[in-house]
């Protein structure tokens, strides 16, 4: 499996670490209610189909969101977390 690093291009999967869903980038405000924090920390969808994962490319230190289909395993693109909206 290969993943596209926005910094380095397509690289072997073994250089990456998967952290989970990209929801982890959507941090609630500090004073958000406990439900929002619970949702942020613990609750994840388990989509069959398009998904956005958070990966770390260790050689360059880039965090990226990878667009991937959990059914077909197709990797359709990636965005650096720093650039993502």
């Amino acid at each position, binding site marked *: 499996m290969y993943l596209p690093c926005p910094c380095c291009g397509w690289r072997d*999967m073994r250089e990456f670490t998967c*952290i989970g869903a990209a929801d982890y980038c959507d941090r609630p405000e500090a004073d958000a209610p406990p439900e929002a924090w619970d949702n942020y*920390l613990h609750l994840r969808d388990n989509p069959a189909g398009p998904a956005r994962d958070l990966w770390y490319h260790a050689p360059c230190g880039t965090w990226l969101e990878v667009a991937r289909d959990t059914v077909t395993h197709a*990797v359709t693109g990636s965005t650096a977390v720093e650039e993502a909206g």
Partner: protein
Amino acid sequence: MKRRVTGGSALDRGRAVRFHFDGREMTGCRGDTLASALLANNVRLMGRSFKYHRPRGVLTAGSEEPNALVELKRDGTFHPNIRATLQELHSGLEARVQNCWPSVRHDVMAVNDLFAPFLSAGFYYKTFMWPRAFWERLYEPVIRRAAGLGRLPRAHDESLHERAFAFCDLLVIGSGPTGLMVALTAGRAGADVILAEEDRQMGGRLLSQAGQIDGQGAEDWVQGVLAELTALPNVRLMPRTSIFGTYDGGVFGALERVGQHLAEPGLAPRECYWRITARRAILASGALERPIAHPGNDRPGVMLLSAVASYWHRWAVDPGRVVVFGNNDHALASAQVLADQGMQIAAYIDPREDVAGDTPFPFHSGGEVVATRGRHGLREVTIRVRGRESRIACDTLALSGGWNPTLALTCHHGARPVWDEAIAAFVPRPGMVPGLEAAGAARGRFSIAACLADGVEAAQAALAELGLKAPDMVLPEAEDSAYALRPLWQVKAKGRAWLDFANDVTTKDVTLAAQEGFASVEHMKRYTTQGMAPDQGKSSNMGALAVLADATGGSIPETGTTTFRPPFVPVSIGALGAGAKGAGFRPERRTTSDAQARAMGAPMIEAGLWYRPSYFPQAGDADWRTACNRETGFVRQTVGVCDVSTLGKIAVQGPDAGRFLDFVYTGTMSRLAVGRVRYGLMLREDGHVMDDGTCARLNEHDYLVTTTTAAAGEVMQHLEFVQQAFCRGWQLRLASVTENWAQMAVAGPLAGEVLGHVLGEVPDLPFMGYCPVQIGAVAGRLFRISFSGEKGYELAVPARFGADLFRHLVALAEGLGGGAYGMEALNVLRIEKGFITHAEIDGRVTAFDLGMQGMMSSKKDFIGRAASQRPGLTGPERMQLVGLRPSDPQAGIAAGASLFQPDAPATAAHVEGHVTSACYSPTLGTWLGLALVVNGRARHGARLRLEDGLRGQRCEVSLCDPVFFDPEGGRMRD
């Protein structure tokens, strides 16, 4: 009996090869496989089956072989489950049959066969259920002794293995008529092609049949194509290479047999584990012939017709008198060709009523084989033609139940094949694996002409996708006969008819499974163990599935196939782990003082990937503790030196550096004065402690963060995430500088004197202060921090000066009555002071648990703040950090022990806490421990019982403050 005829395209008849099989010396030819050489030596009995220990002979001539699995003596050990059909003969080869004792002809366990009525499908589940008391004492040892095919060597596998990577435009899997045409078409188009073939020779089935292609013999045509492919620089031929799995992104796993066929492999590895990345791939793996399940079909001498033809053509093995039992046109045509070439065909039996042929041998349409005879090998078959039975004497029974496309690789991503009624077999659908398409016999196109044409077409499609122009190809003339069959899944007659030869599964077992409710194909498989032997049921799964469909009244496509998973062929663990044994297992990180520490005799211990000195022994030491006590004494009484370079060091620089650090630490770093150092705690976002360490402000916009050795990587990754995800646009940069600086701790009352010698004059640094220093021409950094509780400094220099600095500091310390100290002493020093490490920060503790809730700023947001305040992460029900002292100071305690109320039973439900770190304190003359105990801070003075089941320790301990020594901290401050 003479078993060799003239010829044999694979053989070099002039070169005799001597080998041993089961202790007997035999002679084969160069070019033989072990199986062909054994057949030529009239050895038909090559192994015993798994469950009933029935005598078994070779069934096939390829990697799908279920029976002829042998033990190969090699590399000073032996390798089990080597397929005799794949193992090439070399002089001095020594092989042994497995699964039998004392010999293959007289196997004691064959008595199992007499108990066959009790060993039917699911016998483990039924027999070993009760009484319960027998589970561990009786049943499990019995099952374990009987389990497994072959035996494992006890010694480490020292044979060489290699790992390699390859990339190509087009991977062609299989080199029969289809694969050769694919490679030729793509090769001429200039594509970067890899042609992988499992066999030693390229050509696939063209090597095993007579036939003409383009007006020349099939073998000559193959040689011509191979000559052209070899001359093309863009085509790589990989014989002896099995593709065993397809993975995401066009990655294929492959196993190449590099040295196993050589008498003197020299430095050649036994096997090479390849990872091949291909932009496109074409599966031209052909088809596998299937046997017919009739009573007695497992006797040595019963083989697939295609195997009989292969051994005849390639290895000149004379099968003697042959009865052919086939249900299809291909079988009939094949029998006629073989008879023309001089093979003795005793009879041809075909269940079809409506076929006839003008054959030079007796032809029985509407017939079936219903029994076989011969104790260690076939002597006679009984056939039944329209209700009448008769016997035919023979040496070989050749079976042909039709052909199954070899499609497993197309199913490795989970897609299922479809049923093709015309050939009574499953075929792949297009697109089951992105970038991989099947062609030729692998998708049910069986004639040579169809394969050649399909190969060209598949190559053209792949070339178009690769953006390459396909060359004009002229299709060679070849056989294009129709293939018609009538499926015959089982002969219904008295006696056991075998499906899975390796695992001893009969048609009756499958029917029984269905009757007992295991009617789904996946359940049947597990209940009967059908297809679970090393051959993965390649020649038997289809038959078993058809019998199951029959038993359940469903159709075959309704019944469906089991899941196909990699590996398609067995892959040795040695090959999978190639390059990762011993020192190759993971990288080693060594400090700049490593050589010096080893020269001083220090045993090195692992700390993550690092190696650090455990202690520095001296002549006359009774044991390691003598050294540890001495080194602890250096620091408490004079001065000690320790290399602390393994601690993670992260430079955080830029105008927003302080703001960033405020966000990742619980405390406030932006208000730290330049030249000051602060202890800091980082949390994970879920509110638990991630790591602790110091943060120094070197300059206005220049901070240095240190982490523990264990968490350096995790912290760096975390900081990068926080920066990139939450601090977009902030002006700061992070860089790991762990390896750029060598850092030495100098600790003890005389630390200042040592530094005075090095620096000339010791700067007047307050505790937790920092200043740049010059050591001659070298710019260094001096921190006044302490992990020992004594007056201490850490002196950092660029890594290339680390070795010299360490030597120099140790010599100075020794001159003052001190010296180097290792990890053991470092651990004692920090436990005496109650300083924590990752033994305490175990991923489950909060700042509250460690008594550090005061370090969490309430004036700002930081990572982990919200979650750390949630209910359940603070309060008396939490396990909190405490100190432990045994009532008897000499009662040894160890980390991992559990703590209980004095009279509570030692069960999990009563555990009140556990010891996280422990040591003998030479300073205080007692054992000490740090522990996490429920509501521990409120229970100082309480007495608990320590139980260590593993080490058999039990003693009374009392809880106290975790800082045992100099609680006011005067020694390190003043």
